């Protein structure tokens, strides 16, 4: 059953150095506040997993939290490169970063297989794609009925999944709405999970019958961090801060500037800093 903890306690109890950690949110509901807490707690050697390692992983990698990353598209969407991510891979700064690179289809299927308790995902993919030649985690099987060669990748079963969601009930159930990405799969496939939420409500009485809900007994820890997805967004609460995504390009461009920004805004900050984004943005989804 989910425990309600402070963000610091939730991260402290769920994540250890060297863990494989899947922080998901497909553009939407990215758990930025949780990422900052991991940085503040100076976790290291993490094996990060994420389809789209955007700003959140740029920050964690630049601050030396990670040894390895599994991903399928590494950029600042619509803006350009992730400078810290690239600096780590190309120049080993602040430390070497091993990569396990896939396509979106492969990772989406691998999360699905993880949630489904399977050892691997089987899909029609990587046909004519050279990634299959350079990544040993891409294999194939033949359909026993048609003989067709299908791609196979290991299921994703992280030590810890970290996600942000709209609501938790007092019972510890969690609601996601809108672009739900692979978060449910990431949590169901993981050994432990931490969920930050915009708000905690008494119950989920008025939801539609097929709402996307993670029951309390699938979650390790819940913590309420209003605005905790910023600069990502929370459908129904606040909009994506596209201006910040553009600004990040300059902030992260050089090492010193990045470190100074992180020192001021993350190391010297706390989860309560996110509340103003939740309120300030004000762009409640129509």
């Amino acid at each position, binding site marked *: 059953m989910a425990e309600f903890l402070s963000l610091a306690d939730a991260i402290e109890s769920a994540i250890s150095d060297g863990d494989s950690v899947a922080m998901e949110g*497909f*553009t*939407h509901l990215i758990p930025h506040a949780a990422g900052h807490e991991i940085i503040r707690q100076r976790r290291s050697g993490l094996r990060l997993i994420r*389809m*789209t390692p955007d700003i959140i992983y740029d920050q964690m990698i630049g601050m030396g939290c990670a040894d390895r990353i599994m*991903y*399928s*598209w*590494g*950029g600042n*969407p*619509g*803006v350009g*490169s992730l400078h810290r991510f*690239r600096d780590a*891979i*190309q120049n080993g700064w602040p430390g070497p970063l091993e990569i396990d*690179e*896939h*396509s*979106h*289809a492969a990772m*989406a*299927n691998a*999360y*699905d297989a993880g949630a489904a308790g399977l050892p691997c995902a089987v*899909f*029609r*993919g*990587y*046909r*004519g*794609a*050279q*990634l299959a030649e*350079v990544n040993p985690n891409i294999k194939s099987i033949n359909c026993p009925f048609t003989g*067709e*060669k299908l791609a196979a990748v290991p299921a994703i079963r992280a030590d810890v999944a970290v996600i942000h969601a709209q609501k938790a009930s007092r019972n510890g159930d969690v609601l996601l709405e*809108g*672009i*739900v*990405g*692979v978060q*449910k*799969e990431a949590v169901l496939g993981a050994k432990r999970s931490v969920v930050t939420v915009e708000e905690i409500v008494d119950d989920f009485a008025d939801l539609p019958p097929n709402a*996307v809900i993670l029951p309390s007994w699938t979650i390790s820890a819940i913590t309420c961090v209003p605005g905790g997805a910023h600069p990502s*967004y929370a*459908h129904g609460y606040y*909009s*994506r801060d*596209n*201006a910040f*995504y*553009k600004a990040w390009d300059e902030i992260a461009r050089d090492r010193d500037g990045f470190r100074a920004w992180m020192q001021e805004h993350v190391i010297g900050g706390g989860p309560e800093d996110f509340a103003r984004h939740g309120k300030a943005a004000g*762009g409640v*989804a*129509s």
Partner: protein
Amino acid sequence: MSDYTANEMMSIAAARALRNDDICFVGIGLPSEAANLARLTHAPGLTLIYESGTLATKPDVLPLSIGDGELCETALTTVSVPEMFRYWLQGGRITVGFLGAAQLDRFGNINTTVIGDYNDPKVRLPGGGGAPEIATSCGEIFIVMRQSDRGFVDKIDFFTSLGHGTGGDDRLRTYGVTTKGPSRLVTDLCIMEPDPETKEFTVTSIHPGVTRTKIEENTGWAVKFADEVAETPHPNAEELEVLRALKARTAAAHSA
């Protein structure tokens, strides 16, 4: 009607290729601009799908990311990302996939992974994302990309996404892929289509005011021209007006 930019001509020419009953898997950037322009002009029934899970979305401003709130709010419904890649893309429900590229060869093979060697790259690009499976699962592929000899190369450094392979029937023969593959390449200079036999991209329409020499200078292989090469029709007033209004709304929204 010469008061438009080459980029505008590119988006408009790309938009025109989409049909009203297409189900289009849209990438961010130029594909998204072209696809929404088509929807707002000649193809109001066009169905746009973004890999974030948004089905039949009708954004009023262009999304900066593949999963902006605008996409979900205007969608018919939104499904999970595994469902999107499994039921909708792999399930064969998409008629047209729209891709961009960092490097492209004459057969429409695409590199968006690395410049240089994979294990010791000169530049690491964002990677394949959805492209490797978009390239093989959609009914056909449109590529939209600014033309330059740095991007249009004789040999790509890495095969991120399959086009026509080594040409001819290589796509089917070697990889067992039964979808049509790249059927149209729209640039800021011209439109190319694969030769029916060799599958090599061949110029079939040149944008107004562009010379063959300019196309040749901006292509890293010895570019071929079809026997009959058309002139791309100028953007019309509606196309330009709708495109500019869309971009203005987008700029305002993203700087907020």
